[in-house]
């Protein structure tokens, strides 16, 4: 155990050193180019700390906490909607080949279209909260669907055989074996999906949203030339995404352990 702790400390130290090195390179380069579009890291961090501490109201009238919560809510709505649809459809696709055969051409046609390409459609077709949620939804839906299908298909056929020789069939087989056995893959899909959803949120906010959002914050700060705020917003998006990932990884680990995988 002590050995493991020491190893853990070394790992964190290496990671921190790499991040610090990156910031140092950033600073050197920023000094070199000396451009208003590339602020130095110390300016950015000072701005970041300041907007977080004062919870500044920017010129659009939104607090930074409102920007954050608006983005989080959009991601969660798009993600939730995608999960509610993608998991059952994925389970059915993996289980019943004819449903998969019916759905897979549609999916293969839509999947390669980047969520960004849907923005014009989303703007004209949906109203404010839905249009941005729709973009997030598009980013999240496919990873969840695909890993759910893969999960069902990779179920150990012996488990299904065992259940059948114990007299289980039809819907019971689905409910009692297929679903629980797919949980680890579903969780992987949810984790990846949420990560992509978070990446889509800035794009999603391009559809013209009310009520702020980190994407809006970055764009409006860029419009008035306050690039240290733009970078502070970017770092905020990065750190929040990182925290979301940490939570999801923990959740995934727990549920996978529940499902009997390590």
């Amino acid at each position: 155990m002590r050995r493991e702790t020491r190893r853990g400390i070394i790992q964190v130290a290496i990671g921190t050193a790499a991040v610090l090195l990156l910031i140092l390179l950033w600073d050197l380069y920023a000094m070199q180019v000396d451009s208003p579009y590339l602020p130095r890291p110390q300016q950015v961090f000072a701005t970041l700390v300041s907007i977080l501490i004062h919870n500044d109201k920017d010129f659009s009238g939104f607090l930074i906490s409102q920007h954050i919560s608006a983005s989080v809510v959009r991601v969660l709505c798009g993600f939730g909607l995608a999960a509610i649809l993608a998991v059952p459809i994925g389970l059915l696709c993996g289980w019943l080949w004819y449903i998969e055969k019916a759905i897979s051409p549609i999916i293969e046609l839509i999947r390669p279209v980047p969520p960004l390409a849907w923005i014009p459609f989303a703007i004209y077709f949906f109203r404010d909260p839905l249009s941005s949620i729709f973009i997030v939804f598009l980013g999240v839906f496919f990873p969840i669907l695909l890993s759910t299908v893969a999960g069902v298909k990779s179920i150990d056929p012996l488990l299904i055989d065992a259940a059948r020789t114990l007299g289980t069939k039809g819907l019971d087989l689905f409910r009692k074996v297929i679903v629980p056995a797919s949980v680890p893959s579903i969780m992987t899909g949810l984790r990846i999906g949420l990560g992509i959803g978070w990446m889509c949120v800035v794009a999603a906010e391009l559809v013209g949203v009310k009520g702020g959002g980190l994407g809006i914050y970055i764009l409006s700060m860029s419009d008035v030339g306050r690039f240290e705020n733009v970078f502070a917003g970017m770092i905020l998006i990065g750190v929040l995404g990182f925290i979301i990932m940490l939570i999801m990884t923990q959740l995934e680990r727990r549920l996978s352990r529940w499902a009997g995988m390590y």
Partner: protein
Amino acid sequence: MGRNVLVSIQNLTKVFEKDDTEITALQRLTIDVFEGELLCIVGPTGCGKTTLLRILAGLEKPGSGTIRFEGQEIRGPAAERSMVFQEFALFPWRNVEKNISFGLENKSLTKEKKNEIVNGFVSLANLKGFEHSHPRDLSSGMKQRVAIVRALATDPKLLLMDEPFGSLDAQTRNIMQKELLKIWAETGKTIVFVTHSVDEAVLLACRIAILTSRPASLKRVLEVEIPHPRDIMSSESIQIRTGILKELEAEVQKSLMTH
């Protein structure tokens, strides 16, 4: 032991098609399984023993020929013909108790009755104290004991065992063989037990069916009349064992010449 026929297999032939080639797994196999007996099936590796068991379980469709269980054709799997697999096939998200009760959940029994059955099998399989453990925390011997009583919990008329002790170490295997005999004596189930170990067959079986190399048909059925518990080193045992090994060797030779 009565001599009522529980399963009657006549001229059973099974052909698998794979990438345009046909593989005949079973060819005109004929054998009866009697009620209450422990029938061991031995044969060269890959001869089709598992296929036979899977057809009995209803997991594979029979090809031609007839296979009747209590006079009825077998159509698909059912809890009256449960199966124990070499790889245990326990549900990893269910603890011991819930694995055992899996097959009971479809039955219309009271909760008390179900608990009573599960508890009974927990003691029969020496799993007291592990009711709430998950498969990942069990030794392989314990896993297989769970799998056996899980298959017994639905009160099947026929228990199919596909090399159930094949992946266990020698020590555990010996213990499990004794446990199985104990369970068989206590429950009086009809068991069809596939194994590639002649020793195991001699130790357990009422009758031993020797299959030919693929495509498998019945080479010979042998009654083992030594009372349990048996001594594998006794002269009778050794005699039977030597006889079977000779026949199997001839089969393996034959398959080497043709393949």
